[in-house]
Every structure is written in structure tokens, then in C-alpha cells.
């Protein structure tokens, strides 16, 4: 590897490296809580968080490159020991947490300024630190019980952060939805762990690791299914995603960045643990259906997520939907990896796994960046509705540039990181013909359609999001006379933007990071090398971004030189946009975000079920042609909430209503219940005699 932090571990053991960040986050939390004075509060909470994140990064890299950490604190509670076990898998996710939380806490120093006036910043800092801490502990705990404790703690704290603006009714509502759904997920995870416990008789993950291979077939599958759904809720897979597009926008933007970039990855972590670490996933074709399930769910999630994103007007909600999409892509990668492994295609399985993990870290980075960018926009304009915005590029050049980098990465344009992971995923797809099962081959071949569709629509989404929000001219007063956000916020974003470019150009850096974290059989190479996949006998596939960049610059220089030589220097005059000679174009005549996505709504009308309401106001009711004003409203349905959740909820409530009516208030009926129960039980005994 390029960077080798062992010079650090000479001084500090990795246990200390583990304790330092935890202490720092606690310090941040408490000092935040204690600092009544708001001006001091922000540095007092977020600076420790920053330092803690740095140590977190160092710690994780140390684990990845060195040995894993294991410690046990017994007898805190009966039956359960506090077991900490940080191996490569945990370290990889801890690294993600560290990178993003560093950038976000830097960003928060500036961002949380606007809360100073209206809210208790100290509470916020407390929750913020605890949130990061809980995520670190989730991935490093090695005992089902404590895992669930930290898991629920994470959910709880994030819930409080979601409803931080609890004056708004809809925030409360989305918070409750979030809490309930995530608790449902936790219940499933709990069941999955318990199934393991019944088999092994121990709540420690070690026992699962050792003996899960010997589980009965049914138990293995049950463990997987429960874990998959349970973690899927947190990851936001369709159709269990409904909390996500409500919760993420409701939270303050720095928290949404953490949630969308890191927290939903905890779901991915859980799946990786369950499938690849324990639950005895034997590499045999009878487990191929796990992978098929993952790929199917992933495809559905990615397509429906991006379809909602492309028509969304709330910038943060659009980003939340795109998180669902990216989780889908990650799942597709994981699923392919499982399928390949099931058929003993180790190399391909590794390829797909790397692709998926690469996309995991990528998504963490650019989604964090994008949410912070959106946060800056909201910070400056106080509006989340992109129909209000526009022309921001002129007053906020830095935010615009960084957001553009994020957008380009998430769309998967070379030379940014998104391209690399999607390229790898596609390569995994292209290798699917090596699976010795025709039906699987064809179904995977069909799965590439939603994947490709996703990529296509994603670019449309972000063209629309970026173009409408930042380009052309302000659509109303929100976006007028605004100014660039504080420096700390820009730096925070710039950190992640740099990471985007770094991971895009030095692809093999990321790959060797992943492969050494997960101990994959692929030789780490110098980060400047290209990727070389010998995925079949005929010929190898290469991708070497540095060279592409060289070609880029060569072309640029060449083109510029050529044009200048033949064309010479020419003048530029700025003049109004061509208005067909009508004159005074104003912002009313701009293309709106809604009309921009209208063709897409039309093409996918099956999915959106759009219907338009046009209300005219006439000068005289007799004459339909003299229209004073016309109001146009285009509504799309959310098929999941309307055809899946509503029926379930309403039927449940109906049943509950029936049940609770036994409390009639009549003492006679109450006594009758007792009498009947007694007589029935006695008769039961008597007759069973």
C-alpha cells in the first residue's frame, strides 16, 4: 500500500487507537452538553469529533494493514459479555465512518451556526457525537446482545436528530415512521440472531462463525432471510424504504449526510457479516437463490429509487431516493458475488464483491458530499424546493463546483469514482456467462436492463437537480442576493470531493484497500497501475484512469492548439439569451424542474400513475378562450405506500379496534369473561382427563 501507518502503531497499540476516538467522541458529547454558551459550543463539540474521526481513520487503516483487535469485558450483565472484535470487515466500515464523519464534523462547525439562534446547539452536539460513536460500536461489537443495543442506540439517536426540528409536524411524523420501521427491522435481526443462538447456545458472534456451517439447511436460510430483511430496512431496500425519503430530508443536512452516507451502510455491513462471515454460507448451488434474491431486490430498489429521484422537487428528498438507488447497486454487486461463490467461481465472486464494496465507499463519499452541498444551498437560500432556486452558481461558485463533482461521481462519469465501481459491477455482469446454469445466466442478463436503466436515469436525475438548482437564473426571491457559505463548510465538502477524484483516478488504490481489508486473493499493486481483469481465456479488460487523463489533457491541448492556429484569437461579446425577438425574457419563462421531467413521467406512466389538474380562471365564464390565469398541477402516486402500506396498516387497525372493544365498561360483561374463562379451562381439564 502507498500509505503505511505503522510508524504510528510503534507508539500506540491498536487497543489504545480504539479507545482514543471513543473517548474523544464522549468528550465531544459531554462538553457539548455542558457548554451552555452557544458560541463555544460548536467548537467544543465538533472539534473533538474531528480529531476523533482522524483517529478512527488511523485506527481502521492500522487494523486493515495489521492485525485485528479483540477484547472482552465480562460480568457487566448476566449472560452477556461486552465483546469487541474489529477485523478487516469492521475496519473497512469504520474507515467509511471516519472519513465521512471527519468531513461532516468540519462542515458542521459552520453549518450548525444557524441553529444557535433557535435551538439548543448543545443537545445537537451531544446527539451528533453519540451517533457517530454508536455506529463505530455497532460495527465493532461481537455479541448479538450488544450489537442490538448499539444498533438500537444508533436508531434512537438518529431518530432524535431527525426530529431535531420538532416544531414542524411532518418532521415528527417522518421521525415516528422511521423509528417504527427501523424497530421492525431490529425485531427481524433479533430473530435471526436468536435462531443462531438456538443452534449454538451462545450469543457471541464467534460461535456463529465457528459452528454456523453445521446448521441445518432450513435454519441457514431462515437466518439469512430474517437478517436480509432486517438489515434491509435500515439499508432502505424497496419496498421497506418508505421511512428513508421522509427521515433524511427532515434531519438537519449534516445529519442527513451522516445518515445517508454512513448509517444505511450499517445495513450493508450486517448483510456482509451475515452472508460472508457467518450463517455458514456454504459455497454450494442451493444458496445461489440468496444471491438471486439480492440481485432482484437490488434491481427493484435501484430502478424505483432513481425513478422517484428524477421527478422529486425537494432537493434533499431527491438525494435520499438516489441513496435507495445506490443501495440497490451495492446489493446487485453483493448478490452477484454470492451467486458466483455459490458456483465456486472464486475470482468472479471476488470481482463482484470488490465492485460492491467499492460502490459502498464511493456512495458514502459522494452522497455525503451531495447532502452537504444541498445543506449549503438550504443554508444560503432556506428553501429545499428546487423550483424556487436557480442561478446559485453565480453567488456560490465553490458550493456549485463541489456539488458538480459529487453529481458527476454519482452519475458515474469518468474520471470520478462512481465510474470505477459501476464499471466493475458491469464487468461482473459481463462475466455472468460463466455460471453453469442457463436459467441463472438469462435472468442475470435480464437484470442488466434495470441496472443500465438506472445508470441512464441517474444521469438525467442529476442533470435536472444540478441544472435547475445551480444554473440559469434565480426562479424567485429565495435564490436572490445570497452569499457563499462559511469556509469550514466548503473545506468539509472539499475533503470528500478530493476523495471522489482520488478514488476515481487511483482505482487500484481503492481495490487494494478493499482486498486487504477483506483478505481477498488479489495482489495489491501500485496505485498508479490500471485495473486488469483476466476474467476469461480470450482477452483481458483494462482500465487505467491515469492514462485516460493523459489522453484527456493531450486532446485538450491538441484541440486548443489546433483551433487557435486555424481560428486565431476571436472576441467574445455577451448579450441576452435569444428571445425570438420578443424581448425581456424573465424567470417565469424558464423551463421548470417539473416540465423538465415531464417526458420521463410520460414514459413511465405505469409506475408514476401521473394525473394533471388544470384549473382555468376565465375573464367571462361564457368564453372559454379568454383565460385570465391558468393553474397546472401534476400529481404522481407512490405505488408502494398506496398499494402496500395503506392496506396493511388499515386492516391491522381494524383488527385492533375489534379487539379493544371488549373493554365495554359493563361490570357484568367483565365478570362474564372471568366466568367463561374459568368454566372453559375447567371443562378442558375435565375432558382431557
Amino acid at each position: 500500500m502507498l500509505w503505511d501507518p505503522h510508524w504510528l502503531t510503534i507508539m500506540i497499540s491498536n487497543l489504545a487507537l480504539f479507545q482514543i476516538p471513543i473517548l474523544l467522541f464522549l468528550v465531544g458529547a459531554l462538553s457539548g452538553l455542558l457548554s451552555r454558551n452557544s458560541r463555544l459550543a460548536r467548537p467544543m463539540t465538533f472539534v473533538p469529533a474531528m480529531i476523533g474521526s482522524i483517529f478512527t481513520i488511523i485506527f481502521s487503516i492500522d487494523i486493515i494493514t495489521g492485525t485485528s483487535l479483540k477484547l472482552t469485558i465480562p460480568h457487566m450483565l448476566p449472560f452477556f459479555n461486552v465483546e469487541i472484535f474489529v477485523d478487516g470487515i469492521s475496519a473497512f466500515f469504520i474507515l467509511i465512518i471516519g472519513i465521512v464523519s471527519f468531513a461532516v464534523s468540519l462542515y458542521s462547525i459552520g453549518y450548525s451556526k444557524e441553529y444557535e439562534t433557535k435551538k439548543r446547539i448543545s443537545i445537537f452536539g451531544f446527539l451528533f457525537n453519540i451517533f457517530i460513536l454508536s455506529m463505530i460500536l455497532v460495527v465493532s461489537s461481537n455479541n448479538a446482545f450488544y450489537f442490538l443495543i448499539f444498533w438500537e442506540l444508533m436508531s434512537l439517536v438518529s431518530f432524535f436528530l431527525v426530529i431535531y426540528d420538532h416544531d414542524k409536524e411532518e418532521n415528527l411524523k417522518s421521525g415516528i415512521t422511521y423509528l417504527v420501521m427501523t424497530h421492525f427491522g431490529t425485531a427481524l435481526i433479533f430473530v435471526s440472531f436468536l435462531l443462531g443462538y438456538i443452534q449454538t447456545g451462545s450469543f457471541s458472534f464467534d460461535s456463529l462463525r465457528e459452528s454456523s456451517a453445521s446448521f441445518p439447511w432450513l435454519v441457514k436460510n431462515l437466518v439469512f432471510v430474517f437478517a436480509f430483511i432486517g438489515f434491509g430496512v435500515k439499508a432502505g431496500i424497496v419496498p421497506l424504504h418508505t421511512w428513508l425519503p421522509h427521515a433524511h430530508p427532515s434531519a438537519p443536512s449534516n445529519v442527513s449526510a451522516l445518515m445517508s452516507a454512513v448509517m444505511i451502510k450499517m445495513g450493508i455491513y450486517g448483510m456482509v457479516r451475515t452472508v460472508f462471515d457467518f450463517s455458514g454460507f456454504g459455497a454450494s448451488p442451493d444458496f445461489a437463490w440468496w444471491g438471486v434474491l439480492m440481485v432482484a431486490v437490488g434491481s427493484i430498489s435501484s430502478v424505483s429509487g432513481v425513478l422517484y429521484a428524477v421527478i422529486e422537487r425537494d432537493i434533499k428528498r431527491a438525494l435520499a431516493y438516489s441513496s435507495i438507488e445506490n443501495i440497490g447497486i451495492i446489493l446487485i454487486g453483493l448478490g452477484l458475488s454470492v451467486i458466483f461463490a455459490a458456483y465456486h467461481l472464486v475470482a468472479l465472486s471476488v470481482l463482484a464483491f470488490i465492485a460492491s464494496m467499492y460502490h459502498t465507499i464511493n456512495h458514502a463519499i459522494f452522497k455525503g458530499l451531495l447532502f452537504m452541498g444541498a445543506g449549503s444551498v438550504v443554508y444560503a437560500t432556506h428553501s429545499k424546493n428546487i423550483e424556487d432556486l436557480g442561478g446559485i452558481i453565480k453567488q456560490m461558485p465553490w458550493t456549485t463546483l463541489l456539488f458538480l463533482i459529487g453529481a458527476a461521481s454519482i452519475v458515474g462519469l469518468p474520471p470520478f469514482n462512481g465510474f470505477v465501481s459501476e464499471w466493475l459491477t458491469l464487468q461482473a455482469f459481463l462475466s455472468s456467462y460463466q455460471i453453469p446454469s442457463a436459467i441463472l445466466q438469462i435472468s442475470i442478463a435480464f437484470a442488466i436492463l434495470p441496472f443500465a436503466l438506472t445508470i441512464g436515469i441517474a444521469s438525467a436525475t442529476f442533470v435536472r437537480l444540478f441544472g435547475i438548482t445551480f444554473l440559469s437564473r434565480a426562479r424567485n426571491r429565495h435564490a436572490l442576493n445570497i452569499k457563499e457559505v462559511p469556509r469550514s463548510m466548503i473545506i468539509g465538502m472539499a475533503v470528500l470531493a478530493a476523495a471522489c477524484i482520488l478514488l476515481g483516478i487511483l482505482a487500484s488504490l481503492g481495490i487494494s484497500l478493499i482486498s486487504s481489508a477483506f483478505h481477498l486473493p488479489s495482489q495489491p499493486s501500485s496505485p498508479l497501475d490500471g485495473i486488469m481483469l483476466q476474467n476469461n481465456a480470450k482477452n483481458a479488460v483494462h482500465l487505467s484512469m491515469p492514462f485516460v487523463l493523459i489522453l484527456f489533457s493531450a486532446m485538450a491541448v491538441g484541440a486548443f492548439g489546433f483551433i487557435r492556429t486555424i481560428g486565431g484569437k476571436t472576441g467574445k461579446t455577451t448579450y441576452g439569451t435569444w428571445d425570438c425577438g420578443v424581448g425581456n425574457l424573465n424567470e417565469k419563462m424558464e423551463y421548470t424542474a417539473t416540465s423538465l421531467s415531464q417526458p420521463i413521467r410520460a414514459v413511465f406512466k405505469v409506475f408514476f400513475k401521473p394525473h394533471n389538474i388544470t384549473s382555468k380562471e376565465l375573464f367571462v365564464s361564457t368564453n372559454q378562450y379568454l383565460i385570465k390565469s391558468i393553474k397546472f398541477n401534476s400529481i404522481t402516486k407512490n405505488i408502494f405506500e398506496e398499494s402496500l402500506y395503506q392496506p396493511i396498516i388499515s386492516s391491522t387497525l381494524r383488527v385492533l379496534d375489534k379487539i379493544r372493544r371488549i373493554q365495554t365498561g359493563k361490570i357484568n360483561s367483565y365478570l362474564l369473561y372471568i366466568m367463561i374463562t374459568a368454566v372453559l379451562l375447567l371443562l378442558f381439564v375435565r375432558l382431557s382427563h
Partner: protein
Amino acid sequence: MELADIFSGSNRAILALLLTPAMGAVLVTVARQKRISEIVTISTAFLILIQVFFIVSKIISEKTITAFGNTFYIDSFGAIILLPISIVGLVSAMYSVNYMGRQYDNGMIDMKHITRYYQGLNVFLLTMLIVPIANNMGIMWVTVEATTLVSVLLIMLYFKQNAIESAWKYLIIATVGLSFALIGITFFYYANINVENSSDAMNWTEMMHNSKLFDPNLVKIAFIFILIGFGTKAGLAPMHTWLPDAHSEAPTPVSALLSGVLLNCAFYCIVRFHIISSSTIGPAFSSQLLIILAVISVGIAAASIYFQKDMKRMLAFSSVEHMGVISLGIGFGGLLGVYGALLQIINHAIVKPMMFFASGTITQKYETKAISKITGLIKVMPATGVLFLIGGLALVGMPPFNIFLSEFLILGAGLKSGQFLATSLVIIFLVITFAVFLRHVIRMVFGNPFPEIKKGSMGRLAIIPVAILGSLVFILGVYIPEQLQTLVHNASAIINQGGST
């Protein structure tokens, strides 16, 4: 027996323990003054707490205590019931000062009521203290019945329509139920004297000693009567119907005692006979019955909480749910299940009073119990709001609070004992309860308060008791001291001695 050995060792301890509240009641009656009665009650409760701690530590060291021949018999299980009684007793005595004081100042009640209230409180404590230490089942029954009568009197303190209505329902239903229990006890006694006709055949230890020889059919019928009877008092569905009325209409400190402690006492009696019957006919029979009633209770609670308009009724129904969970744990059996159930008894006894106290303060602030009218607690009274939120989260089993551990253990035991249907049903119900309960709590705690509510807390005395319990809730969630662990362990051993499913 000789006068000497009345004052010997354990007899003295028991005598002192029982005399303290009695003296308290007498003093209150004599004094007839608000301030004095408050001080007296708090100090009695405090003394009780100290003595209980002594007794419990003794139990931990030497397992059992017997006194006055075999009339009194305390083992680890009884000790686990004693602990909450003493703790909650003290805290609600402290809380009463503020609560009843306010009522007095508002002129809702006069001096006569105050005296009657504090008398009642002391006697109530006395009766409840006898239940878990009585070896003679007859005495146990009498004291349980006595608790009913005392608590009815305490509920009747006001002349409000609802109070009287709930008192009537409570009295009739509880009395009927307990008569079932008496039949059950007598059956067991009969089974016992059929085996060996000894003078203290009424003692639990005797019954336990002979239980292997009991007649199975007799035991079955007897246990059904016991289950119906004490189940009524313990608020197991479908005999729970009196509970929401009584618990919501009683004065708040009394509600706390009813929900937090009295239910445990009643359930304690069930478990005593569960032990005997499982040693006679194996645990399958009684466990099944317990599990069935438990599932019904949890389901009905979940259903009733959602549509609840009254805060205290909501809490009462959540008590039904938790009693269900406890009996589920006992029913599932095994070390995990019983351990979880016992922890759940303690935890529920800590959390529920906390919630009731908080709700009492809230009611006095907002002057309503209607959930829909209570919003923005966190802004109006931050301390109480936060504590109320913590309590709510603990009640639905959210870590890092104490109930999570016990429910985790119980459900684990459920799957381990192969009760998949019951466990999955209960998990579903618990998720529903989580949703509906927290929905109410969150709407109360957050959001914007109505403008006419003026900010400001209700004084230190209203918060301290809640805060004490709140800290316990958190501590027991992350750390359980060694002694308590051993105590609970021994107790589960006692309950499991009948063998486990």
C-alpha cells in the same frame, strides 16, 4: 412459643419490618397533621427500605429465612418481590408529599382525606409486605384480599364519579377473583392433607415438600382456580378489565404502587403454585396456561393502547402488557425465561411508577389527562419531559434501558423452548405496542405546547423521585450488580426446581 424467641434473630427482623408501617399508620392517625404525617410516612418507608436491604443481603448469604416457626418464610424469590415494594414505597411516599400537597392546596381534598390517605398508604405497605414473606398460604390470601380492600379505600378518596365507578368494579371483580384463588389454595391444602395430615399443611414449604405425591387431577383443577383468581388481581387478560379503571382513577402515588408492586405480589402467588404444580405434574400444564393468558394480555394491551385517549389508562394497559410478558417468561421457563421474568418484575416495578409520577406531574400542570391536549412537554417542563420520554422508551423495551435486557431474555427463552407460535405472536404484538405507545409519548413530549400552558416545572419534589427511578432505569440497563445477579439466579433456581420445559 416463648417470649424470648419472639425477639430472637429472624423473628425480630420480621417483627420490626411489619411493625414499622403499623406504627406509621398509628402515628399518622394520632397526629392528624399534614406535615407530620408526611414525615412519618417517608421515614417509615425509609426504615422499611433499610430493613429490606438487610433481609435481602441476609438472603443472598444464606438463601432462606424462616420466622415464627414456619409462619414466615423468605427465599430469594420473595426477596425479589420485597425489593420493589420497599423502593417504590419510599419513592411514592416522597412523591405523595408534592402530589397530595398540591391537591390539598387546590382544595380538592381536606385534612381528613390527607390523614386517611397516609393511614391507607401505611397499611397498604404493611399488607403488601406480608404477601411475599408469608409461608402460610392462608395468610397470604388474607393479606392479598386486604390489599384489595385498602386500595379500594384509597381509590375512593375522592367523590369523583369515575373514582367511585372504578372502585366498585375493582372491589367486585377483585373479590370474586380472589374467591377463586381461595378455592385453589384450599384444593392444594386438601391435596396436601391427603398426603400427610400435619398441622401446618397450609404452609408452602410443606406443600412443596409433599408436592411429588399430590393427585395430578386435583392439582390441575387447583391451579386453574389459582390462575383465574390471582390472575385477576395480577391483571392477566381476560380478567384484567378492572385494572385500567382502577389504576387510572387512583391518586397517582397509589397508581404507582398498584401498577408497580401490587401486580407483582399477585403474580408472585401464581408463581408459588406454578412451582408446586410443575413439581407434581411437570411444568408443561401450568406453563401452557400462563403462556396462553400472556399472549392474550399482550395482544389486548397492544390493541387498547393505540386508541387510548387517557394518559394514565394508557400506562395501565401497558402494565397489562408487561404482566403478560412476565408470565410469558415464567411460562417459557428455563434459566433464561425465568431470569428474564424476574428481571422484568424488578424493571417494570421501577419504570411504571416513574411513568405514573411523571404523568401525575404532567396532569397537574396541564390540568388534563387527555393525550391529545398534552404536547410540547420538552418545552414546558424539560426535566419531566425528558424523564417521561426515557420512561416511555424504557417501557417499549428500547436499549440502553433496563427492560430491553429482560424482554430479550424472555423472547430468547421462547424460541429456545420451541414456543415459536407464541413467541412470534408476542414479537408482533410488541412491535405494534412499540409503534402505538411511542406514537403517543412522542406526540406528548415534542411538538409545540398549547399557548395557554405556561412554561416552568412543578418544583423539585415532583422531579426528584422520578429522577431517582430514571437513574435506576438507566443503570440497570447497562450494569447489574453481582449481588442482584446471584439473587435473581437463586430465585430462578427455586422456580425451576419443578423442572423446566
